[in-house]
Structures are given as C-alpha cells and as structure tokens.
C-alpha cells in the first residue's frame, strides 16, 4: 500500500490489515510484509490509500 498526502496517521488501515504490514507514525507506511491485496483501501476515512496500478 502507498498513501498520499491525505493520510493523517489515524491507524485505521493498520487494524484491518490481515498481514500486520502497516506501520503508523504520523503517517501509515507499508512494511515488506505488504502483499498489495488492497484490503485496507476502503477502510481509510480520508481516501489516502492509492489503488495499486
């Protein structure tokens, strides 16, 4: 997953990530464990997660 400038760092995506692959510190960032499944996208309240190409 990749976030845009909308991300506020609320961590909602991290709680819905099945892979435990999101770290949050002011903004959300994917770790190497991210498989680009896109599961987190709809849970973001500020449309900050970009859909993988």
């Amino acid at each position, binding site marked *: 997953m990749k976030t845009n400038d*909308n991300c*506020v*760092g*609320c*961590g*909602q995506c*991290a*709680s819905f990530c099945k892979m435990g692959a999101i770290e*949050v*510190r*002011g*903004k959300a960032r994917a770790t190497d464990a991210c498989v680009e499944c896109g599961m987190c996208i*709809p*849970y973001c*309240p*500020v449309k900050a997660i970009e859909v993988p190409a």
Partner: protein
Amino acid sequence: MKTIVIGAGLGGLLSAARLSKAGHEVEVFERLPITGGRFTNLSYKGFQLSSGAFHMLPNGPGGPLAQLLREAGASVDIVRSDMTTVRVPLKKGNSDYVKGFKDISFSDFSSLLSYKDRMKIALLIVSTRKNRPSGSTLQAWIKTQVNDEWLIKFADSFCGWALSLKSDEVPVEEIFEIIENMYRFGGPGVPIGGCKGIIDALETVILANGGKIHTGQEVSKILVENGKAAGIVAEGKKHDADLVISNLGHAATALLCGEALSKEANAAYLKMLKSLRPSAGIKICLAADEPLVGHSGVLLTPYSRRINGINEVTQVDPKLAPPGKHLTMCHQYVAPENVKNLESEIEMGLADVKEIFPDKRYEVLLIQSYHDEWPVNRAASGTDPGNETPFSGLYVVGDGAKGKGGIEVEGVALGVASVLGKILS
C-alpha cells in the same frame, strides 16, 4: 416522516436511533465499510483500540450522552470512573517528573498554591457560579486572577486532555459551562465494550424500529428544493427525504449542497465555514502486564512536555485487552503549527511516556494521529456554529456542531439533543 442521515458516526446514529424510535422512517448512509466513525473499536493485536475517542464519556452515566442513549432506548452499561488524579513533581519547583513525582486528587489542585491564592480560588469557586467570567480566553482570565505558573500548566493539561486545545485557545465561557456540567452530571465513565458498545446498542435500536443502515455507500449530493432539503444522491441513486441530517460537519455538508448555496444569499454562512478550525491530537496506545495508571479515572500530566492525560479503560472493562493485559491510552494536544511536525511531536510524546512511567514495562501498540479531515474535533470546542444550515430540514450534527459546555462526545450529544428538540417539538 422520512429522514436520511449522512454518516454513521456517533452523532448520526444517535439522531437515527432517537428518530426511528419516534416513528420516523430512517435511512443511514455511510461511506466506509464500518459504522461508528471516530467512535468505535479497532481490533489490533487482541486489544480493542479505538478509531478516535478514548472509550470514555466525559460526564459518565449521568451525562448528556448517557441520557440521550436512555431516551433512544439504547441499552449500554456505563461505569463511573474513579476520581481524576494529577501527577506533580515530588518537590515544588521541579519542572518535570525526573526527580520523582506524586499523584494528587483533581479537586486538591489548589493545595499547590500559596495560602493567599488558595483563599482566592476558594472565593472564585463560589463567586463564579453566579457571575460567570466572559470575554477572554481561559488563560488570560486565570492570569488576571492568580499569577501562578502551576495553575496555567494545570489548565493546559485539562484543556489538552478534554478538548485537545491549550488554555489560551479556549473561551473562558466554554470552560465555565464545562465546570457547571461537571457539577450537574458528574465526571467521566467508561462504557462496557468501549465505544463500540454504544454504537452496537444504537444500531440495535435503529434496526428494531425498521430503520436501515447502508455501509460502503457514499453520498455525493444533498438535494435542495425551494430552500428545503429534499433528499440525497448516493452511489448515483436518488433518495427522497423530508429531513436530512448530516454527520459530516458544516464544511463537508456545504460542499454536498453544491450550487444550492448561493454566494450572495448565503454569504454569512460561507464566511463562517472559512473560520472553522479542526483540533488536532495524538493518541499513544500502550499495552502492559501490570497497571500503569492503576485506577479507572483520568491521570493528568501537567508537567510533561506533550502528554496531557492518560486513561486505563481495562480498569473498568478487562475485555478491552487480552486476558491479564491492560490497555492504557495517552493523549497529547498538537498545536496547529506542529501538525506538519507530527513525527517529532510523537517522539516527544514517547519521551514523556518514559518519564511518566519510569519503572514500568509496557509496549507501544499503536500511535494514532488526528488532524484536518479526520481530526479530534471538526470544530474546536467553543467555536461550534450550531446545528442549523441555510436550508430548512437540513441539520448538521457531530463534532462539528457540538452543544455548549459539552466535552467531546457530550458536546455531540448536546448538539443532537438540540436538533431533536426542533424536529420532535
């Protein structure tokens, strides 16, 4: 009467539950796949973290939110918290907790003042109930009464914890309304099941009364006819309604109204929208095997650099954490100019946590920050512009339209109660 609610946060669901009970045909539209907005649980590593709020109602089982839940027929158990304590340096004059600290009761705050100032505070506690101060910020007012640095720190930690503001940003009128509400309703409480305990109870009421809750459906337009709300468009489909209640705050609601808002006729409303400022904050969620706070109330930390206050909700509901664990949540205010420096603000918060709990073992579970489009409050406390819009039948509820003197979700409840008063009278 057909009522459409936009947004399934606390304000939206409270409105929907109470109106469905009153016989309205209610439909709620929520953009996200989950309900509850910034007032629900997020499961994380076996803990029930929250999407925003601290699993705590500022006025507990006697407050405006608890009362509205009862009126709506929502069954929630809210347990009154222990007395708030305040962590102060062991030795007066020390500027932090490094050389030791002690916890005093919230109501003993004046014990740290000089004899003369204590007397002055005792008199003010009586006199201000009749003659409320007004026309300045809390901090400016304190400085005209008592010149003591501790009192400012104490005020800042309370305002930071309760409102995510500093005492020089809060109108003194708002604080005295809050104090009056503390007398009237009592102090904080924890809902069993956390925030989601309340959201689930409200949804049960809505569904039992035939209401509908749609998740994953984004509203793209509010329809206005002859100056009156007429419905919405969601996912390209038109839905007619007699009443529309928006839980999105005034600014986002206005955007959905589109060209119905005229630059000329609604100039004052549009100008007001520009003046609205959301408040920002950071929540550090800790997991521990032993209690860190040790009671079910709030621990205020006025001598920290960033952390304002902490609660430990597992003192009331152990199920909010895995067996034997505690969930402890720290809040810190973020000044508007520091929103761009969140990482360093978080560093300072984490350093504070170490200083507040020097000999304790804990794990940092998750650090959550809130600002701008997903803030602590859409309208900073004391600046809420009410629930009305330029259109009849269109109301705004939620943390962008709180009632006076209501801390956080109590303010949301007061705002909803005000709208319900207009609709149901």
